[in-house]
């Protein structure tokens, strides 16, 4: 039970934490406070922020829906690749399992389709 091997790591943690705390805590005291519009704006990868409607701005929920659907099928593909590669080893059992998996995803797909999740408007 030698914990001593971890002492450097703990030390590193402590140093990192102390640095973070120090920089944030020291900034208001040391740094000059000059606010301008650019400083108060949201940070969007350095490009000019897109104008947003009053109240914080909202994206239509449809974007999220589309993104989620994409991820569902993306994940499906991730599963299909290794299965296809080792199809021989997995045999009938693997085939049936994969059918069940695809079936489940299609249940969800059917739900989205029927309930209008694929219509943009």
């Amino acid at each position, binding site marked *: 039970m030698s*914990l001593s091997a971890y002492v450097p790591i703990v030390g590193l943690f402590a140093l990192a934490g102390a640095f973070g705390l120090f920089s944030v805590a020291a900034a208001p005291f040391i740094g000059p406070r000059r606010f301008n519009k650019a400083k108060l704006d949201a940070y969007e990868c350095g490009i000019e922020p897109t104008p947003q409607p009053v109240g914080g701005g909202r994206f239509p929920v449809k974007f999220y829906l589309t993104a989620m659907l994409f991820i569902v099928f993306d994940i499906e593909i991730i599963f299909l690749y290794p299965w296809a590669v080792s199809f021989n080893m997995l045999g009938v059992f693997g085939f049936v399992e994969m059918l069940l998996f695809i079936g489940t995803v299609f249940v969800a797909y059917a739900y989205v389709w029927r309930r209008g999740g694929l219509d943009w408007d």
Partner: protein
Amino acid sequence: MGDTISFPHLDYAALWPMLILFGAACVGVLVEAFVPKAWRNTVQLVLSLLAMGAALVMVIKRAAAGVTAANAHTASDAISIDKAGLFLQGALLVLGIVSLLLIGERTLETGGPFVAQAAITVGSEADRRQAARESGATEVYPLALFALAGMLLFVTANDLLVMFVALEVFSLPLYLLCALARRKRLLSQEAAVKYFLLGAFASAFFLFGVAMVYGFANAVDFNSIHANISTSDKPFALLLIGLAMLAIGLLFKVAAVPFHVWTPDVYQGAPTPVTAFMAACTKAAAFGGLARVLYVGFDRSNWNFTPVLGVIAVLTMLVGAVLAVTQTDLKRLLAYSSVANAGYLLVGVLGGGAAGLSSMLFYLVAYGFAIIAAFALLTLVRDADGEATHLSRWAGLGRRSPFFASVFTFLLLAFAGLPLTSGFTAKFAVFGAAIGGGQTWLVLFGVLSSIILAFPYLRVIVMMWLSEPGDTTPSVSIPGALTSAALMVGVLVTLLLGVAPSSLLDLANNAASFVR
């Protein structure tokens, strides 16, 4: 290439309850997709009840056939459907059926307690339209089935990874269910987001704990962990940190202090039938999982986690009880009382041995029925704005509707642990088990906190009976058949387990063993 992998043997007889529920949930999603709107609610309700009934039959059949150490494990030891697991599955199904009756109630208000399209902005024109006309979301049924199936898997998982998957499977539907309240939508959605974020936080703890334990024991299944604890040459701290993080993840689900902060907000915000489901079933599942982790994976033959968990139990009992005193909203009051009850359950778990386990199993069933009945009653007391849960609104309810006030009084007395109610026998069992396990100090604090906890219940009783009904005292709606059934079952079981608890105690005693 060309080799074949040896596949795990699957004991379908043991897995049927979960397979039925998962299958029915998938069918339920298809029902949402293809069955006309007008029929959906009936079809879903019948389908869900049938599925749960069938799963329960399967559980009973397996219990009747007998569970032995030889046939308990399946799927390469990833799942262990032993006696305690089977008891928990049965309890979850029974409690699930009773709370599904509440979820299925549609007569109390137009469209039921759920909203059809939670995504529509609260207060907008479209929202008013849907509130007036549309019947509620019927997706709640498949969601509840998914959650319940996840819970069944959770209490029988014999492997930390399966456990984690099950944890997510039953948590995600619950987050969604929380957001679906028809009334007080913002509160409901806020609760769902909070529950989701904090739940994700807790899951992260759990997963990190799994990694730590794997680092120490080189395994994620409980048998190997248990075997490797004494032989591993890794630093012991890895295991400790791992177990602590696992415990944090699980203690979040059971709502133990200091991981209880979400409970009042979520209990208050969620639609009341969902709150009932969570209070009864989530608690049972989480404690089942916690007990399995502690008893099977990390049993205390060579080390001791009791002091820390004991302190948590004491804090949970005291903080829950004391904060319940100042609550003015009944749902929040019951939430804090559920926190305190988690403490009593922890006392039972820490009692250790078969007695501790059996007292915990008994407590879960007794508490589950009582809390479902209490929330069922909450759904009945309502005015034009929906349920009236503020305490002041219940003033004088005893004069307005003596029958329901008496029933609620009875339930509160049961929570307070008055003899001849299940509350007494359950508390007696857990405290007795703790005494038997040498944890007298826990019982001291348990008794102390149960005195404190009697005050808030008394306040409600006094409010109902000894105050004049005001203009704002809501009326009590006539319950529909489903709510009546849930209420009646809950109250009768509470009484029965108080007067003649021996049959269930026997059952719990027989079931009180995990198979390693």
